[in-house]
């Protein structure tokens, strides 16, 4: 490279990266910063204060919808953890071809709006009541695909010799699965569940179609508040959620990523 080339490219690179990073982070930064604003005006800084955090935490609609979201996410994730793992194992054992794999992961590609109206139609057909159940059911559906994706990837990298050694030492298939295979899959299962959990917490569109009055999830609640204008508690709530999500994800990454990425010895 000539000197001039190095400089030009360096400048271009730096500018692009900065611009995109600012574009991506600016809105989040604004929300986080304004959550600490002591005034209630949207963008005039009036001093540091935690009052909106207190307001958010004591707001009944916000907290009950948060609780609802957590309940939905936990239930859906639990279902998806089990079924997603089973799906991955089944696909892995039955066929290694790409077709079955694609089919298994299809739920993740269905547009959420379609899944939302479809679930609504399903519940209408059987005259089931929509609410907590309908949201859980739909969330679990796409989470299954996510967990399956993670576990399938890990299954591909497992050393078959370990299962064979276990069989050779006299273990039944069930025992082999419980003591040998499952522990190796755990990191991937947990990672898939963590991702699915956070997606479910934030999921709006499906919830929008399938919630009822008593079972509003957090995004739904925020939406109705936001439609009527901007309220400062939301800034605080959003920042809290962001921090919690970051902490969870980073913890998961730190603990699980090396285990997931470990290659065959």
């Amino acid at each position, binding site marked *: 490279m000539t000197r001039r080339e190095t400089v030009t490219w360096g400048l271009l690179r730096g500018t692009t990266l900065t611009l995109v990073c600012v574009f991506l*982070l600016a809105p*989040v930064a604004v929300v986080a910063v304004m959550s600490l604003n002591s005034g209630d005006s949207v963008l005039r800084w009036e001093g540091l204060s935690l009052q909106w955090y207190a307001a958010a935490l004591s707001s009944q609609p916000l907290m009950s919808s948060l609780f609802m979201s957590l309940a939905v996410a936990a239930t859906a994730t639990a279902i998806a953890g089990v*079924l997603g793992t089973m799906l991955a194992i*089944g696909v892995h054992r039955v066929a290694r071809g790409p077709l079955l794999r694609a089919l298994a992961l299809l739920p993740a590609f269905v547009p959420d709006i379609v899944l939302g109206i479809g679930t609504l139609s399903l519940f209408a057909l059987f005259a089931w009541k929509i609410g907590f159940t309908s949201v859980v*059911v739909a969330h679990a*559906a796409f989470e299954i695909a996510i967990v399956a994706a993670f576990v399938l990837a890990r299954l591909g990298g497992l050393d078959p010799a370990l299962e064979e050694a276990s069989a050779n030492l006299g273990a039944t*298939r069930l025992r082999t699965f419980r003591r040998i295979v499952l522990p190796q899959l755990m990191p991937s299962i947990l990672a898939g569940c963590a991702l699915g959990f956070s997606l479910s917490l934030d999921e*709006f569109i499906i919830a929008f*179609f399938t919630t009822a009055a008593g079972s509003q999830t957090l995004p739904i609640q925020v939406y109705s508040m936001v439609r009527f204008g901007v309220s400062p508690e939301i800034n605080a709530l959003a920042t809290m*959620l962001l921090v919690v999500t970051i902490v969870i994800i980073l913890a998961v990454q730190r603990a699980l990523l090396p285990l997931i990425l470990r290659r065959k010895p």
Partner: protein
Amino acid sequence: MSSSAAAGATRARRSGLLTLISPAGYLGLFVAVPLLLVLVSAFLTRGRVGGVRLPISVDSFVLLAEPVYLGILLTSLATSLTVTLVCVVVAYAFVAAMRGMSPRGRAGLLVVLMVPFWTSFLIRAYAWMLLLGEHGPVNAPLLSLGVIEQPLTLLYTPASVTVVLVYVYLPMMILPIAAAAESVDPTLRDAARNLGAGAWRRFRTIDLPLTLPGCLTGCVLVLVPSMSNFVVPDLIGGGKTVLIGNVIQDEFLVSRNWPFGSVLALTLIALLVGVLVVQAAVSRRFEGHAR
């Protein structure tokens, strides 16, 4: 294969099929059936108080052909294509700029990428309302510096809807392209350079073709979701911009014309299938090029 190995393989297959029963059953009931219902609903008539009923009719399809709805369809398509295109360009620029960074720098950039992803999607749209509003950080300094006299109406325009949609879906485009770029052999670029290719030619003949599968994955993740997103047009567009997603939402929850809403949903699915087919075709052409 020895007979015991063959027997083992069949046993594995059988146990695999058994394991598949529960998840397949669940997905069948809660994904396949809903999709089927949407398909079927499109051919039925609207119910008296919402829902669907017989007789079978294609009224909803006919309705779709009305200029109003065709116009919305085309506008949505145009908007999504714009959003997708902008995302592709920005994503490639970003990935190219990322090249040559240390692994630590790259990891840092990925975190920056993911932070908006981890923030509630609603909150992010809401944040843009703040940014683009009349007292927002864009208008405020311009006003106080006297550059403009009236605050610019940045909000509630089609352009702002596009910008925010790009914002929401950009990470979904960057990630697959970055992953694809990672697996491109760097000596290929050196070879191209040595053979006389300048930067643009290198991008056009080496990077672009070899990352095309990743780019298409990104398009799948951006094109249809951006069309079905109704929150952004609602909050940022102020209801003035109407995309397919808004109409579907309206038909199902307000107008209660489920068959028509289903028809619209079908167009979305048709589009999705179209994009997936294109992606599969291109991926097949590239089989065997993975390192």
